[in-house]
């Protein structure tokens, strides 16, 4: 019975989180359902004119992706805080930075990745020109990972509070804005035939920065929350 190596441990955490998510499939389905329903709101609010919707589609799709990510962020550490697993994680000899990264990675796999995969469907419903769909997929793939990482900080800071749900939005929405700007810009660029790669590159840069720093802040937040 030797202590597991760190990569082994992280993979095990990832697997644990994914199994937990898969055994409660509605939790995975909810954000997608939310996405579909909010997509339906826009034609009702803005009018069904296809050209108008196509004009706004990049922004609309990105804003909904952002909101559905926001709604699930709160749950990243919540159940582990409630049942005491988080205490055990903090006392573990394994590096907390990588453990936190595994949690956030699992969250991204069941929210952001799935959202990116189904986004072409919603794009078609909103009349997004076909040229923009690849850029939408790629920008969501990169962008939602940044959102999950930043959301993890908010989740860590509010997990000890009884009502963290609204507060977490106030904390992290301002931090989401750069992702929204470049994510929707990538799609818009692709729609008018301009290269989307520069925007995706900037999203990639944001992702690198977020991977490097966000787990540090989230880990500090978890220690504070468990202490409080």
């Amino acid at each position, binding site marked *: 019975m030797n202590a597991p190596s760190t990569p082994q441990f992280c993979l095990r955490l990832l697997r644990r989180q994914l199994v937990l998510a898969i055994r409660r499939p509605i939790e995975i389905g909810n954000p997608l359902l939310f996405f579909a329903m909010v997509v339906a709101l826009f034609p009702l609010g803005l009018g069904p004119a296809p050209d108008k919707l196509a004009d706004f589609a990049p922004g609309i799709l990105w804003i909904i992706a952002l909101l559905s990510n926001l709604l699930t962020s709160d749950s990243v550490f919540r159940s582990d805080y409630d049942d005491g697993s988080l205490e055990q994680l903090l006392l573990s000899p394994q590096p907390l930075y990588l453990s936190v990264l595994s949690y956030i990675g699992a969250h991204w796999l069941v929210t952001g990745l799935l959202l990116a995969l189904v986004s072409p469907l919603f794009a078609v419903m909103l009349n997004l020109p076909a040229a923009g769909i690849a850029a939408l997929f790629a920008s969501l793939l990169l962008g939602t990972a940044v959102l999950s990482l930043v959301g993890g900080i908010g989740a860590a800071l509010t997990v000890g*509070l009884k*009502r963290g749900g609204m507060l977490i939005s106030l904390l992290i929405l301002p*931090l989401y804005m*750069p992702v929204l700007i470049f994510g929707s810009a990538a799609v818009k660029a692709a729609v008018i035939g301009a290269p989307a790669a520069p925007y995706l590159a900037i999203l990639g840069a944001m992702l690198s920065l977020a991977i490097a720093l966000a787990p540090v802040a989230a880990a500090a937040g978890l220690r504070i929350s468990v*202490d409080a």
Partner: protein
Amino acid sequence: MWSFFHKLGSPPWLYGIAGTILRYLLPVTLLALVAGMVWGVLFTAPDFRQGNSYRIIYIHVPAAVVALAGYYVMAIAGAVSLIWKMKMADIAMKSCAPIGAALTFVALVTGAIWGKPTWGTWWVWDARITSMLILLFLYLGVVALYEAYDNKEAAGKACAVLSLVGTVNIPIIYKSVDWWYSLHQPASIKFTGESSIDPSMLYPLLLMITAFYLLFTCALLMNMRAEILQRERRTKWVRKLVEESA
């Protein structure tokens, strides 16, 4: 040197020294504010394009500059309290947030008032205004997080982490918003380009910026004194202080 740090950790000493500093700093601040306003409003020529309405920059620009700097003061105080577990840094950080939020709000309101005669509308999604709005959200996030925690010690640490995260993000947000604005803004009606400012207008502006920095310092010290009294309300020295003043 060590004795200085030791004293910094002593609430009565800090309360006293902040009071002494305020006694001298407050009159200086008031003088600088009045002098800057009088100079800017009465002794500068009207702008050849905007007439007299531009004079609001003597409030708008200093408030915006100090609001942004205030966030960094807050984050640095937060870092100090996280790293060295210094209670006074915690108090300083906590006291910064409402002042910074108020200054950001002033910058936004004066910006809107300035916008009406200049652009013909109260609100324009201009890069700087949008950035200021996000800064206001960041400040309010810190205030909201602090209030949400019952354990004020944990609240301080959590806010310190949040303000450090904000510090990393502010340059990214500013650059993103700047870029976003340039993408959506035809060059012909660009207001935020490099423009030269006449020295006769610049000097009173610099004086006003200095005055706002002093004002920020005064407000911070007063806020910290109030917070120290609040936290130390059960101690002997605060009780004695209250009895003496009663």
